[in-house]
């Protein structure tokens, strides 16, 4: 089934019902380790719902979401609360409508992402209050990590500016940098290219490909921007009305009649 590839996220028979409305219906797919998997589909197809199930903001009505670390450790995400999914299973996400801490600086945003690590180092605050040197070095390390990611997204010069004052494209990049500071094994990006101009979309592509190449983080992404999807994805899952209608590599999806039909011809040029 996985052809020898290592599966990081195994979604089986995921169903999400809100009262009478079925948002996601019996969805199964796999995301492989070290790959970029994209979930696409017309608006209302249930993509963000899937994300919310994976990251614990919704509790799935039915189904299993199994996350496997490289060391074989497994987590059943459908049973875990949202913050534990990030803290233990190491799944981080970004949001469709950017959710940065607008009144905090870019640096502070990235430090918040390293909260759990720093809390432990500060002895749950008590050692930190007492001036424990172990905390100081952990803090320095965290600042370095933040500095590294700020540099990667080209925002090092804006480190001390409030996140709310940054331009839209910069905010999007900062949100991804913040998610990376949480040291995830699976990075879930909800429409990271939304609102980006072609140049910025290209840079995003380069950035995500770099993450794939240089880190051990796998990426799961929801996107409408076909250029981004087709250029960087290793594997695409297509949803429509909450159900999977196609799955496969970009070349295959590009020509799939069902996919084109679902998008009703709007995307034909973009897909090419």
């Amino acid at each position, binding site marked *: 089934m996985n052809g020898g590839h290592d599966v990081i996220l195994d979604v089986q028979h995921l169903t999400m019902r*809100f009262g009478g409305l079925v948002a996601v219906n019996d969805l199964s797919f796999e995301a492989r380790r070290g790959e970029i998997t994209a979930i696409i589909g017309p608006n209302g197809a249930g993509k*963000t719902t899937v994300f*919310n199930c994976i990251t614990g*903001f919704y509790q799935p009505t039915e189904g299993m979401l199994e996350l496997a670390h490289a060391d074989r450790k497994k987590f059943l995400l459908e049973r875990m609360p949202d913050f534990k999914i990030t803290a233990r299973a190491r799944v981080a996400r970004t*949001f469709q409508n950017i959710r940065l801490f607008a009144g905090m600086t870019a640096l502070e945003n990235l430090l918040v992402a390293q909260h759990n690590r720093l809390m432990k180092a500060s002895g749950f605050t008590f050692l930190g209050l007492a001036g424990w040197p172990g905390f100081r070095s952990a803090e320095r390390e965290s600042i370095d990590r933040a500095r590294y990611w700020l540099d990667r997204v080209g925002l090092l010069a804006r480190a001390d500016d409030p996140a709310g004052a940054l331009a839209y494209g910069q905010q999007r990049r900062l949100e991804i940098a913040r998610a990376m500071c949480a040291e995830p094994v699976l990075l879930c990006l909800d429409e990271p290219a939304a609102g980006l101009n072609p140049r910025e979309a290209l840079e995003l592509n380069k950035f995500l490909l770099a993450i794939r190449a240089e880190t051990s983080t796998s990426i799961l992404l929801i996107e409408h921007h076909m250029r981004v999807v087709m250029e960087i994805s290793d594997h695409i899952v297509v949803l429509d009305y909450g159900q999977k209608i196609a799955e496969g590599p970009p070349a295959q999806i590009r020509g799939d009649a069902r996919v084109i039909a679902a998008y009703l011809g709007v995307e034909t040029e973009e897909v090419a």
Partner: protein
Amino acid sequence: MDYFLQQLINGVTLGSIYALVAIGYTMVYGIIGMINFAHGDIFMVGSFLALIAFLALTAIGVTAVPLALFLVLVIAMLLTALYGWAVERIAYRPLRGSFRLAPLISAIGMSIFLQNYVQIAQGARVKSLPPLVPGAHILMDDGKFVVQLTNIQIVIIVTTVALMLVFSWLVSRTRFGRDMRACEQDLKMASLVGVNTDLTISLTFVIGAALAAVAGVMYLLYYGAIDFYVGFVAGVKAFTAAVLGGIGSLPGAMLGGLMIGLIETFWSAYFSVEYKDVAAFSILILVLIFMPTGILGRPEVEKV
């Protein structure tokens, strides 16, 4: 059994008064997502205005009780509605869209202001009136305990039911009701499609205040005594009622009011009178913890 029946009657009466005030809370919360902390004091102002109006009418020679009461009701409703409008205009409208705490603090300030305004204007002493609607109907009398339904209780319950019907009609059938429901759903969108949101919000406050005034009149007639502090406790209880019934839901406010009235009456009758306020506060906490959407409220799905 008779004792129980009497408490039932008393509870429904008290509940009607709470329901009228609860509507004001629930409407305002539904439309602008704000708890109108000063609403209980609007209720208090209403009862004071009724008192003063009544005394003035009697002084100028209007002694026929039904006529006087009718006039008092109208005057109290009109003037209290004006107070409700003024409070919204001065303390809340400038803060619409500001961060959450600002209107709350502003409301607390208004609450303190209104209490002291009345206290200074009319004195701190309890003001009382002799019973104006005397008479009762004996329902059951077995020699040990008499179950009676007093005329004033009939007046209260009938008036409340009538107003509820009028109000329900208002919300579901009229243009204003539709506008109000639109604003509750999505304020910005409503204004974009042409609803005069400022006017709708003002009217919401006005109607809520008018209903609170009716409750104030009823309270005055039922208990015969008011002071400038009645707004605070009655306000919390009415708010509890609104939350219990489901904040944002009008039938919920009525149901909640009734329930709180019954609970309070039965608690005082069968347990202890001193801790009855604690009972009300505790119910509030329990409801908010275990059933924050209330009985008839719509559960909210968080969109991430």
